[in-house]
C-alpha cells in the first residue's frame, strides 16, 4: 500500500514537473530551475553534513571547481559528441576532478571535528577561489565561456529546468539509497558518537571519506551544469560564500539529516525570498538571518523535525489514553 502510494505520487510529480514550464512561463521556470539546483546542492551537502555531522562551510569550492573544470575541458580538449550530449564528458570530468580533490584533502581535513572542520573547509574554499582568480591560466579573473548546447527550438531555461530536475531526482535517489544502506547507518553512528562507533568496529575513517567524496562529486557535477546554464562566469560567480551558506541554511530550515528536509527547506526559503519578497531585495539578508534565528530558537529540528515531534507526541498521547 505504502509503496504503491509512493510510486503513484512519484509518477504524478514527474508528470507535473514535465508540463510545468508551459504553464508558468519563463520567469517562474527560472525560479523552479533555481529551486531544483539549490535543493540538489542541499541534498548533496546533507549527505556529509546531515548524516555524518561534518558541517562544511566551504562546499562552494566544488561548485567553482566543477564549473571551471568543465569550461577548461571544453577549451583544452574540445566538445566531444554533438548537441546536448557534448555536455556529458565535461560534466563527468568535473565530477571526477572534484571527487579526486576531495579524496586528496579528505584524510587530513576530516581529522578535524566540529567547528574546526567547518572553518577549515571555509579556508579551503577561499584559498582555491583566490588561486583560480589569480593564476592566469585558469582565467578566473577575466572569466570563461561555456556555451549551452540546448537542442534546437528549445528555450535554454526550459532545457536547464529539465536537466536540473533530473539531477535533483538523481541526488534524491542517491541520498535515499545511502541513508538506508550500511554506509548510511555508519554515517549516523559517526554523527551520534564517533569515538564509540570507532570502538564498536565501524570503519569511521573510511565511511567519512566516502561521504565526503560522494558529496563533493555530486556538487561538482551540479557546479558544471550551473556553469553551462549561466554561459559565462568569473571566479566570483561560482566561488560564492552564499552558495556554501545557503546549503546549510536550507538543510537547517527543512531539517538537517532528514531525507526530504533539504528539499522542503529550499522550497520554503526560495518561495519566501524569490516569490513573496522578491521586491524587497535590500532586506533579503535580514529575512534570511531572522528565519535562521527563529528556526533555531523555536524548532531546532527544522520543519520536518517539528512535524515529526508533533505526530510522535500525538501518537504517545493516544497510546496513553488507550492504556
Amino acid at each position, binding site marked *: 500500500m505504502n509503496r504503491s502510494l509512493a510510486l503513484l505520487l512519484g509518477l504524478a510529480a514527474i508528470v507535473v514537473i514535465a508540463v510545468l514550464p508551459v504553464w508558468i512561463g519563463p520567469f517562474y521556470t527560472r525560479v523552479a530551475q533555481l529551486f531544483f539546483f539549490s535543493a540538489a546542492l542541499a541534498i548533496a551537502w546533507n549527505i556529509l553534513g546531515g548524516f555524518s555531522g561534518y558541517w562544511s562551510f566551504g562546499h562552494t569550492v566544488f561548485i567553482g571547481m566543477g564549473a571551471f573544470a568543465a569550461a577548461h575541458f571544453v577549451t583544452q580538449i574540445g566538445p566531444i559528441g554533438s548537441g546536448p550530449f557534448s555536455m556529458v564528458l565535461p560534466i563527468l570530468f568535473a565530477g571526477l576532478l572534484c571527487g579526486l580533490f576531495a579524496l586528496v584533502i579528505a584524510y587530513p581535513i576530516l581529522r578535524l571535528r566540529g567547528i574546526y572542520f567547518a*572553518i577549515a573547509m571555509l579556508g579551503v574554499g577561499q584559498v582555491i577561489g583566490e588561486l583560480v582568480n589569480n593564476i592566469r591560466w585558469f582565467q578566473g579573473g577575466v572569466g570563461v565561456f561555456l556555451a549551452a548546447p540546448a537542442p534546437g527550438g528549445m528555450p535554454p531555461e526550459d532545457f536547464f529546468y529539465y536537466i536540473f530536475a533530473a539531477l535533483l531526482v538523481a541526488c534524491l535517489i542517491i541520498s535515499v539509497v545511502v541513508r538506508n544502506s550500511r554506509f548510511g547507518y555508519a554515517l549516523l553512528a559517526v554523527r551520534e558518537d564517533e569515538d564509540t562507533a570507532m570502538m564498536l568496529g565501524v570503519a569511521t575513517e573510511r565511511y567519512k571519506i566516502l561521504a565526503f567524496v560522494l558529496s563533493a562529486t555530486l556538487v561538482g557535477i551540479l557546479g558544471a551544469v550551473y556553469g553551462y546554464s549561466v554561459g559565462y562566469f568569473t571566479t566570483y560567480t561560482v566561488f560564492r560564500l552564499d552558495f556554501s551558506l545557503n546549503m546549510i541554511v536550507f538543510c537547517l530550515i527543512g531539517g538537517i539529516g532528514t531525507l526530504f528536509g533539504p528539499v522542503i527547506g529550499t522550497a520554503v526559503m526560495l518561495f519566501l525570498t524569490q516569490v513573496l519578497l522578491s521586491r524587497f531585495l535590500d532586506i533579503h539578508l535580514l529575512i534570511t538571518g531572522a528565519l535562521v534565528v527563529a528556526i533555531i530558537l523555536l524548532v531546532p529540528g527544522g520543519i520536518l523535525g517539528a512535524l515529526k515531534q508533533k505526530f510522535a507526541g500525538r501518537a504517545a498521547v493516544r497510546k496513553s489514553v488507550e492504556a
Partner: protein
Amino acid sequence: MLFLQTTLNGLVLGGIYSLAAVGFSLVFGVLGIVNLTHGIFVVAGAYAAMVLYAKLGMDPLLAMLPIGALLFAVGYAYQRTVIQWAISRASLVASLVVTFGVAMIGRNLLQLVFGPDTHTITPSYSFSSLTFGPLQIDVVRLVALGASLVLLVLLALILLKTHFGRAIRATAQQPLAAQLSGLNVRNLHGLTFGLGAALAGTSGAIIGIVQPFSAASEVAWTLNAFIVVVLGGIGSPAGALVGGLLLGLINAYTAQYIGPSLTQAAMFLVLVVMLMVRPNGLLGNAFGESR
C-alpha cells in the same frame, strides 16, 4: 631595508588584529562559543566612532570609552537572551548558527542605515608620519598599535589580578565547580560576553582610523579573529597578541613578496595547515587544563 619596513608594517597591523580578536578569543575560551557576530561588533564600533566624530567631533580614541560601554551592554543582553536560549533549547553548536543569523541581520541593518559604501574616519593626525632613519611609520598606525597594546595589557591584568578575572577563569575551567563555590556562572558568562563585545567595539574605533570599513567587511573581521585564535591560542590576551602579530606579518610579507591579491589565500593556507598541526594554537588553550 625593505624587509625591515615590511616587518614593521606587519607588526603594526598585527597589533590591531590582536585587539580585534581578543574578545572573540575570550568568549571562545570561557563560553566555548564561536561567536560569528564578532565582526559585526567590530564594524559597529567603527561606525559608532565615525558618527561620534562627524556629529560631536569626538576623537575616535576618546570615543572608545562610550563605544565600549555601549557594546558591553549590547553584548551582555545578547548573551543572556538569544545565545542562552539557543544553547538551552538546542545545543552549543546551535549557538554557531544563531550568531551567524544575527550577523546577517546586523549586516543588513548596517547597510540600510549607512549604505553599502566603504567609509573611513580621518582625524587631524591621519596624514602625518614619523621617520626613524630609513624607516617610516604613520602616526595613526602607531597610535592604534599603542592603544591596542594598552588595552591588551589591561585585560591581562584584569584577568590575572582582580576578583572578577579570577571568577571568569574559574568559570572557564570548571563551570560546575565554579557554581558550587558560589559564583553566578550565568551572570559571569553574560559579563564575559559583554567584555568581548566591548573589546571588539573599541578595536573597531581604532580600525576606523587605520583602514577603510564597510558593513560587508564584518565577515573578514570574524574570520581574522578566528585565524588569530587558531594561530596564537584560545582565551588569553597573550595568545591573541602572538596570533595577531603572526597574522600581521604573514599579511605584510605575502603582500610584499608574493602579491597583494594573495594575502587572503596565504592567511587561509596558514589557517588550514595550523588546524591540522596544532589546532589549539601556539600557546594552547588558556583554560584547557581541566577539560
